[in-house]
């Protein structure tokens, strides 16, 4: 790889790559996302690698280890082109079969195909699978075509074309106009108009400016940014260079949270390769523009997703936010103008420059343009990453794409926006998902976490969970957040233990309002949302806990009892064996019984019972 010093050289390289790709007979893509890793995708890839070398000359097989494909519930995922076959839940032992049957003979292996449970039919190609069908995978879709460790893959599919256009065919002012006209809003949660942010940074005078990519993604349940950075790091780099050129910055940072080692590695490799190719560093593509990026790691703090705390973290300080009366685009990292954008926001930039703001603004709603990637997880059948145009209804995402409830239990609510958002009840599922509609009803779209909850989820427990999470993640600087969250959690814990009284709920609301009003940063300001939305839509559940000392979802341990249904119990004794406190008694082949005084409600008996005879209420 030699340094590219002109657009024509870039284009020539692209043509070379494409011609080389045409020589590939078969392309086997194994998904290498972290989710698939947990299911053994590396073993699958290694098996392919071992066995393919033998067949190589005949079929010209190209083996790709790609980034996250999104359908994590069904990993490991293997797709085969040009046949367009989509295999899911592939194990190592399936590899020789795939090679001998599908590659050699063109036969499709039924047991590896996705089965559409409603139509009771196997689906062979990706685009027909209901999970993917309703999606609009503009940003995430390329993950399946790219090996993140190979810059050639990205170039081959048009990568860095947008950068070439920006550097040589456009003025920074024009680029800014395009971004503004596209209507792009920050994808990190706040939804601030990106064009406006860039404009403010661009207009701030200064020789030293910084741009930062925020990959701290602390919202539990959200992993869109991880998959993007892991699977297609160049799309983010390209966006950053374009942004830097627009705003007049020469130095950038990609801040990745410490819990994402693969994403960090992927980005590091991409930076190295981009530097080697002359797409980062001095005189990019011979344009005279210098820009370089480096990694910065997080240490394990959710609060560092907040802009000013993130900046403090990069400066080698503790992640303590500061007042935002003066915006970071005026005074940020080391006191210099700094523009921070989320991973997904940066990834949208090359698309807008290449295909135009008009195209981008034709997708989505009036105030929320483009697509959004969601992490659809929880008690839903098809969990994974979903990219849809803004304005699609919650119902469509949860039922059409998500496949509806997981265990036959009714879906009760969906939690959006992470700890800053709230739970919305099923009655509101017709609402469109965009920046403003969910905020109006007390939640928010946030960074894209969408956690589906069913009848087996206790909404009081969920409120307690988020409050406890925020209590632990609070930096501790300001009194309302530090003490207020602790007290709110104490009250909620008391309620789940049956200690709530008539004052509990009103005190909770009063405290929540003050914490929201007086906290210094977004963490504290939005911390009460889970509680307030819980009280707004599920007040009866809270009242059940407080006044009737009952947990309708059978979750709060102090308010529930475990018992064995006599009729269903087979007397196998598995529960008796596994019980850590010897709280189960019974003779072989006779119905067993749980002694409630000794039962710690650990749930082990329910886990091992094959007859499903353990009841919790």
């Amino acid at each position: 790889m030699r340094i590219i010093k002109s657009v024509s050289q870039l284009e020539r390289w692209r043509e070379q790559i494409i011609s080389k790709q045409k020589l590939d007979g078969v392309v086997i893509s194994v998904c290498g996302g972290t989710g698939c890793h947990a299911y053994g995708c590396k073993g699958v890839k290694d098996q392919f690698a071992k066995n393919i070398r033998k067949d190589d000359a005949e079929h010209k097989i190209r083996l790709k280890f790609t980034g996250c494909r999104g359908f994590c519930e069904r990993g490991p995922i293997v797709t085969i082109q040009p046949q367009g076959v989509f295999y899911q839940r592939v194990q190592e032992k399936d590899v020789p079969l795939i090679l001998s049957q599908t590659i050699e003979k063109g036969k499709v292996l039924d047991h590896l195909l996705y089965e559409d449970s409603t139509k009771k039919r196997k689906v062979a190609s990706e685009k027909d699978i209901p999970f993917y069908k309703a999606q609009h995978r503009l940003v995430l879709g390329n993950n399946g075509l790219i090996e993140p460790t190979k810059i050639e893959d990205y170039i081959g599919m048009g990568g860095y074309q947008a950068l070439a256009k920006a550097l040589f065919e456009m003025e920074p002012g024009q680029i800014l106009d395009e971004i503004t006209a596209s209507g792009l809003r920050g994808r990190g949660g706040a939804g601030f108009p990106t064009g406006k942010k860039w404009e403010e940074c661009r207009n701030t005078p200064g020789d030293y400016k910084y741009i930062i990519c925020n990959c701290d993604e602390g919202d539990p349940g959200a992993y869109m940014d991880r998959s993007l950075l892991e699977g297609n790091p160049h799309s983010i780099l390209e966006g950053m260079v374009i942004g830097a050129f627009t705003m007049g910055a020469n130095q950038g940072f990609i801040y990745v949270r410490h819990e994402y080692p693969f994403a960090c590695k992927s980005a590091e490799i991409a930076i190295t390769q981009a530097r080697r190719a002359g797409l980062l560093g001095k005189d990019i593509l011979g344009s005279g523009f210098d820009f370089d990026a480096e990694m910065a790691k997080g240490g394990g703090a959710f609060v560092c997703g907040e802009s000013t705390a993130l900046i403090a973290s990069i400066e080698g300080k503790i992640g303590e936010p500061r007042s935002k009366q003066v915006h970071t685009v005026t005074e940020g990292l080391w006191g210099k103008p700094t523009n921070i954008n989320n991973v997904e926001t940066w990834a949208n930039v090359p698309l807008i420059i290449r295909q135009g703001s008009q195209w981008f603004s034709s997708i989505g709603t009036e105030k929320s343009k483009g697509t959004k990637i969601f992490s659809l997880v929880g008690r839903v059948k098809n969990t994974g990453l979903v990219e849809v145009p803004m304005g699609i209804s919650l119902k469509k995402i949860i039922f059409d794409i998500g496949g509806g409830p997981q265990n036959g239990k009714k879906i009760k609510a969906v939690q959006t926006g992470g700890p800053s958002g709230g739970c919305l009840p099923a009655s509101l599922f017709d609402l469109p998902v965009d920046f403003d509609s969910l905020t109006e009803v007390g939640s928010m779209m946030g960074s894209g976490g969408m956690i589906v909850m069913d009848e087996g989820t206790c909404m009081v427990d969920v409120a307690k969970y988020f409050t406890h999470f925020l209590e632990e993640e609070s930096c501790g600087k300001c009194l309302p957040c530090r003490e207020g969250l602790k007290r709110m959690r104490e009250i909620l814990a008391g309620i789940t233990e049956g200690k709530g009284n008539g004052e509990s709920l009103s005190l909770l609301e009063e405290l929540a309002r003050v914490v929201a009003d007086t906290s210094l940063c977004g963490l504290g300001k939005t911390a009460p949302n889970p509680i307030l939305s819980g009280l707004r839509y599920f007040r009866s559940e809270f009242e059940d806990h407080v006044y009737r000392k009952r947990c309708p979802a059978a979750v709060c341990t102090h308010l529930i009892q475990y018992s064995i249904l006599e009729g269903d119990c087979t007397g196998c004794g598995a529960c008796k064996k596994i019980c850590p406190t010897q709280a189960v008694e019974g003779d072989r082949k006779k119905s067993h019984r749980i002694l409630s005084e000794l039962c710690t409600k650990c749930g082990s008996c329910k886990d091992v019972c094959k007859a499903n005879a353990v009841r919790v209420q």
Partner: protein
Amino acid sequence: MEIRTVKITMDGRWIEVEEGSTILQAGRQFGIHIPTICYMENLSPYGGCRICVVEIGNDGSDKTFLDTSCTHEVREGMVIQTQSPRVIRARRMLAELLVTSAPNVKVAQDIAARMGLFKVRFPMENNRCILCGLCIRMCSEQMGGKALGFAGRGVGRRVSMPFKVRPETCRLCRGCDYVCPGMIVPCQGIKEPGEFCGRCVRLEEIPGCCSTATFGCFCERNPL
């Protein structure tokens, strides 16, 4: 040099203050009292206790928000209310949070009394430190010792010397003790009808570990 000023409204009155002032400084210039705890003149404002919050709006806009007056700079046309119902409600709850955390710290008692709090609804703790950070800023900004800092996070946050050992840069200047609100001896209240405890008048000191007989210093024998 020309001094630039801005015109703002505070509690319904038009006032003209120097550009770059904070709302708190502006208020003090005109006799408008805003209570503070973690603020001290000549130390950088911190904005941690949030007691000094005021309601801020702009000319002709209905949207208002609360922010700390010690950190918020004045801007032309700002409309500020220091005693609105929203502010009072907030201050009252903050006082309740503070006094249940540190009931024996005088400034906590003072703010609770000022806000009319006689009953509290949270279980009482007995912390000696209110995490105002004044000692840290005093040490770092005025005395150049840089011997104190915050360690830990969230409810586990504490003031500490590195590795809980007094570093060489500490000159035992007692600046930290001097500014610490926890060092001011709390009031014992009314002992007999008509009689005050008089501690504040007698400047009684609580015996500590070393000869200067003040409590809560940062030496190794009695770390906070």
